[in-house]
């Protein structure tokens, strides 16, 4: 066996342009369709509704007609924490969730998970969902299930994987063709690909040739709850200040202070 070639570690991440996001929900369904996410007759209790990618609606809380709305798609943030100790990975007693130093992706192994939901409590982004019920597809609908993602069972936690199976498949192709790395467009998440407004950009945050590398440095870029030190790999950009401020919990007297990003970024 040849020794695996040494490459600079990748850090896959996302930059979502909130100015472009229209709240249409295509990313949510693109995700569900790609990842065999089940559905139930009543999905209006949003705490129980499994949506790896969820679009939140933010408002500036101003009275009519100064009201503004901004939509914010929220996948798993794939937090790096410090040295890969993201909140959920640190607490998992079953080693069912893990952080890979090769890709920066936080994995969730369904067969390993025993459903203690400690990770859900630890995740500050509500990105994790528990299967309270067995997934049931109405007769015939199981035909559209993808073999690239294993369907989950009752009693376990699931979450966005940055469509990791697409990375696996892209790498498989690369191996077959004798390559050792991937081009930017070879590995894209389902939501990125589907977004009709082109709001989502995905790529290797460590790679200066990838679009995300530059976009994350925009002065309008921010991350959610940066002050917790979760070090997320999903960046947002918005030209609206109230939106950028909504990205973290600020005390009233802090509101006007411009966010000092340098403190929380590495």
């Amino acid at each position, binding site marked *: 066996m040849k020794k*695996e070639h040494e490459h600079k570690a990748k850090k896959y991440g996302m930059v979502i342009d909130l100015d472009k996001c229209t709240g249409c929900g295509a990313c949510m369904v693109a995700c569900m369709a790609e990842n065999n996410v089940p559905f139930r007759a009543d999905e209006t209790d949003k705490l129980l509704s499994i949506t790896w990618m969820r679009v939140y609606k933010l408002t500036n809380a101003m009275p009519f007609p100064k009201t503004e709305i901004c939509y914010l798609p929220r996948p798993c943030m794939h937090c790096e924490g410090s040295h890969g100790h993201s909140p959920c990975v640190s607490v998992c007693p079953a080693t069912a969730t893990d952080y890979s130093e090769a890709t920066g992706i936080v*994995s969730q192994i369904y067969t390993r998970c025993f459903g203690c939901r400690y990770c859900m409590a630890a995740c500050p982004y509500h990105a994790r969902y528990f299967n309270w019920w067995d997934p049931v597809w109405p007769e015939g609908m199981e035909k559209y299930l993808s073999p690239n993602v294993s369907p989950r069972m009752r009693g376990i936690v699931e979450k966005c994987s940055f469509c990791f199976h697409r990375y696996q498949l892209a790498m498989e192709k690369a191996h077959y063709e004798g390559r050792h790395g991937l081009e930017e467009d070879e590995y894209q998440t389902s939501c990125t690909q589907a977004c009709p407004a082109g709001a989502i950009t995905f790529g290797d945050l460590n790679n200066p040739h990838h679009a995300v590398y530059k976009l994350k440095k925009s002065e309008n870029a921010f991350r959610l709850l940066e002050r917790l030190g979760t070090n997320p790999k999903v960046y947002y950009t918005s030209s609206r200040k109230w939106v950028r401020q909504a990205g973290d919990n600020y005390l009233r007297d802090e509101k006007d202070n411009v966010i000092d990003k340098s403190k929380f970024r590495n």
Partner: protein
Amino acid sequence: MSTSEEKTKEVSANADSDSGGAIILFFIIGFVASLIAGWIIFPKLLYCQKKQPIDFNHVLHMEEVDDGCESCHFFREDGTYAGVPKLEQCVGCHEEAVGEDPEEVKFVNEYVAKEREVPWLIYSKQPDCVFFSHAAHVKTAGMDCVTCHGPIGESTSLKVYEENWITGYSRDIWGQNMSGLKEHAWDRMKMDDCAECHVKNNVKQTSVQTKKGACFVCHK
């Protein structure tokens, strides 16, 4: 009374001297019986024997093809592995029976003529949560098929498929040796065997939790 007392004593004395032997005897009986149960009966009970729908002669086919295993077990253009051949590949030669082997005749009549796929039993079948890239191992790492699958290409007949009653997977995953010890790399196909080989071959260990291989390398 006294006699009866003596008798009792005698009996108990006998029992005393006897009981040491009996205890050992029973220990040995228990010990041997459980060893027999564990090593011989248990494996027999654990697996049900299944016959492949068609007996396949690898040797015979290897003589006919130019490209070794890859002639039939090939990679698709997208790098995925086609695995066990589908009927359409077999039909190329076996539109009609080319020989007189009853197995081939059965194959042609039962499957080719009826356009039914053969429900092969796959010795190396892994659970749904496992992702395995043949391309990474064969193309990049340059491994041989034999390393994991053993010299199956040298077989003239398909062995019995032993299905684990509890798990539903083939005996080949745990290995023929019930102790779990292996002689060859291909004797077992469990996760630990993958991990062991990865460590041995310096595959980057990227897990933060375990400092070993990260789960997403082989899971989906």
